[in-house]
């Protein structure tokens, strides 16, 4: 979903199913500034990594600037390319693979292509010089397959594990037990053997460091990663004579909703926009990120007073009949279809929802379809808006610990190939497949053929990818709108407490940490309150229950971390 640079037909990822987790657990990933331990025994894999230790092992950064974007990066926003180069530059001269056979598991938010006779897989594997058997798995349920893969010893050779899903995996321990330590291959100047990997943002590499070692290969790195945007159907609002509505505070949003809500014609104002409310109400991401109160004590997201205001506001929206009934029923699978077909006009979705493939799907449902996002605002309308940044990336791939040294080196060379920058020959192959068979080159860039639309799926790029860029050949208006929006809004990003630190609490606190997400059982209460089926008092007692069952102990642990390593 952050994969905005991946214009493949079907990659309209549905971030909703997990955006709650993303916002909450994203921090879970934490990049790494702090050091191991916090008084814990180093061997148990708990604690964090200190800044000095990180500096020792960080891969060197050698930026690459293959082509100049039309919209440059501002405050970390992703650069936007309106055109596609016609001369494709090779960045990898040698065939990377040694003919090895490997398996890879990645999430996919699109229909799973058939592997047999798949020209896309064949073309990429041929170029890689290795057989990388991809096993994409439904992204909406991907978090549920991860624990069995770990517990059943069924991990593939290479796997994508988004950081917002690591909490139930007790990840600080998982990396040491099951995943390959890449420090000997990538630290310092060693990464220069893999120039495309050396070009990835350091902030993203840092977020892949656990317990003093590099484990994660960053995927879709960007310097402006947030939970997502509050989107609206610009075309329909314009048709209703509202032009480009200015949302200055949360009441404006409510009033706009009232104006556009039209259930009689199957058109509702809102999807379930809970996660979008975290921004205007200034609710921090859940632990391992925290907020502080006036006295400087750590507060988890649902311990803050503003979360109650946010719940009340959304409950008011539901009560007024402004939320689509299917959204009330938590049918997240068809949320995008509802937005495309105009059954709801304001929705929340990940950054990656705003790309050419989305415009294509939206226009298939409604020719005039235009997606735009409301700039960030504050609930009260006063003060400067802010939005919590997630780490340098939320996407990491990991190699299996059982691989031999030569196999790891082979796969890192493959990763280097897959991470080739935008506009290169390799990038084009990995993104669009084989020329002529899977795509044809038009004046605006590669266009998938009928075969390509069926067979090309965003798979390899979940294992390794270049820094994120905005490019959707054939959909320049979409790219322009998003690039400009990000240029203007990236300045509101702030680093929450414990930003970019991978902190592994001891096992006894693991459940409290895993429970501290909006999708876990305690978080479910929020959805119940919003829907009028539980009360604020129910919510407060659920929070108390969480505090009793490890939440307070978790706070004490993070206090120790803060005292010893700092909080950013």
């Amino acid at each position, binding site marked *: 979903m952050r994969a905005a640079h991946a214009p493949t037909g079907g990659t309209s990822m549905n971030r909703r199913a997990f955006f709650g987790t993303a916002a909450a657990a994203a921090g879970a990933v934490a990049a790494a500034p702090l050091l191991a331990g916090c008084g814990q025994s180093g061997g148990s894999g708990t604690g964090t990594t200190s800044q000095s230790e990180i500096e020792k092992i960080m891969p060197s950064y050698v930026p690459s600037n293959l082509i100049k974007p039309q919209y440059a990066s501002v405050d970390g926003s992703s650069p936007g390319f309106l055109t596609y180069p016609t001369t494709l530059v090779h960045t990898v001269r040698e065939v990377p693979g040694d003919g090895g056979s490997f398996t890879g598991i990645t999430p996919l938010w699109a229909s799973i292509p058939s592997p047999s006779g798949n020209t896309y897989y064949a073309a990429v594997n041929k170029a890689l010089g290795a057989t990388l058997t991809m096993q994409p798995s439904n992204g909406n349920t991907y*978090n*549920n397959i991860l*624990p*069995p893969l*770990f*517990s059943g010893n069924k991990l593939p050779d290479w796997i994508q594990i988004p950081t917002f899903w690591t*909490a*139930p*995996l*007790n990840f600080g*321990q*998982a990396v*040491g*037990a*099951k995943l390959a330590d890449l420090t000997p291959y990538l630290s310092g100047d060693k990464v220069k053997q893999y120039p495309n990997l050396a070009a990835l943002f350091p902030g993203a590499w840092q977020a892949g460091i656990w317990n003093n070692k590099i484990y994660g290969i960053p995927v879709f790195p960007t310097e402006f990663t947030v939970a997502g945007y509050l989107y609206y159907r610009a075309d329909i609002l314009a048709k209703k004579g509202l032009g480009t509505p200015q949302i200055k505070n949360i009441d404006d949003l409510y009033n706009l909703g009232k104006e556009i809500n039209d*259930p*009689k014609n*199957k058109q509702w104002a809102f999807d379930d926009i809970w996660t979008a409310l975290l921004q205007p109400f200034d609710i921090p991401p859940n632990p391992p990120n925290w907020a502080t109160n006036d006295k400087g004590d750590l507060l988890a997201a649902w311990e803050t007073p503003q979360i109650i205001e946010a719940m009340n506001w959304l409950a008011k929206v539901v009560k007024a*009949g402004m939320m*689509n*009934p*299917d959204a*009330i*029923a*938590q*049918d*997240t699978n068809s949320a995008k279809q509802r937005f495309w077909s105009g*059954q709801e006009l304001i929705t929340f979705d990940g950054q990656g929802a705003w790309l050419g493939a989305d415009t294509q799907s939206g226009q298939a449902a409604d020719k005039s379809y235009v997606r735009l996002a409301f700039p960030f605002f504050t609930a009260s309308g006063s003060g400067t808006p802010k939005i919590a940044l997630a780490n340098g990336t939320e996407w990491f791939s990991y190699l299996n610990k059982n691989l031999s040294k030569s196999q790891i080196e082979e796969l890192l060379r493959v990763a280097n190939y897959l991470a080739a920058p935008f506009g290169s020959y390799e990038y084009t192959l990995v993104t669009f497949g084989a020329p002529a068979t899977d795509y044809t080159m038009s004046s605006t860039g590669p266009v998938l053929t009928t075969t390509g639309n069926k067979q090309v799926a965003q798979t390899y790029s979940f294992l390794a990818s270049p820094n994120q860029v905005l490019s959707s050949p054939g959909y320049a208006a979409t790219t322009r709108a998003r690039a400009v929006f990000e240029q203007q809004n990236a300045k509101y990003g702030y680093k929450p407490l414990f930003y970019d630190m991978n902190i592994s609490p001891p*096992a*006894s606190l*693991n*459940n409290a940490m*895993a*429970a501290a997400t909006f*999708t*876990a*059982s305690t978080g*479910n209460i929020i*959805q*119940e309150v919003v*829907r009028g*089926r*539980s009360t604020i008092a129910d919510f407060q007692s659920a929070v108390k*229950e969480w505090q009793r069952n490890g939440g307070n102990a978790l706070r004490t642990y993070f206090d120790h971390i803060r005292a010893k390593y700092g909080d950013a």
Partner: protein
Amino acid sequence: MSATTTRPQSAAGAEQRRAGQAKAGPARRKTPWRVRLRRDRSLILMTLPAVLLLGVFGYTPMLGLVMAFQSYDLYDGFLHSPWVGFANFQQLFTDPGFWHAFTNTLVLFSVQLLLFFPVPIALAILLDSLLSRRARGVIQGVVTLPHFFSWVMVITIFQQMLGGTGLLDTFLRQHGVANPVNIMTDPGAFKFLVASQLIWKEAGWSMIVYLAALAAISPSLYEAAAVDGAGWWQRLRHITLPGLKGITVLLLILNLGYALTFGFEQMLIQRGAVGPNASEVITTFAYQFGIVEGNFSYGAAAGLFLGVTSLILILAANKVAHLFGEDGLYHHK
């Protein structure tokens, strides 16, 4: 109630056991095992695959239940995870969420049983009274078909009909009802919703067993009764229903065995729509904590509790059946 497929087998098994016992009778103790083995070898061979299946998929995984007594760690495995005795159960029994799921399970099950159980019997009697074979075949096909739909499909169909943007509500909205009730997300209506889903999906399938039992009632009984001047109602009361009694009791007991495990998929799919308050049952509770939140030991403890309680329920029901002179799960001398 999802156990319908095993019913005919169990019924047959009971018959078989009964027959075997009758044949062996008191002589049993004296027959050497070798002779018995030879005599019953084809029967034993026939049950072998089922026993193996049960062993591999039923009993072997139960070894994993040891994690209920551990603080199970994914990376230390069974061998190295620390033992915690009954700590998980202590936490479980003081967890209001668990008791909520437990109560929910009982309430939902009772409503389902009450509403669902008579339907296949009534359906079978009704169908049995039809004279046209053709009409019987067609009706039987139509009512049996939904059994083969997955729960996802069944719930989607209900959603399309009764959901907030479904047929009914859209119609109401277009005819002046501003905010029609959404049956699919109304926690109060949930009990009846899941029961009607079950009836729609399974009643036809469950009917088959009763049809078979009806076919086994000798027509001469009806003829004799008719000659004696018995009306429709009297024939039903004194011939049909007594003829169905044995199988009804057996199915009732089997159903009780599934009381605590029923409807996992059905609840899981609708958990989001109606909220955990209304839909959380013990199986989804175990899944939520064990798999989704990664607290395997806690989930296993909930699962073990459920298994033991189910066993007690089924044994108790069987005992009651014997007291009433029925066979129950097996023949009782």
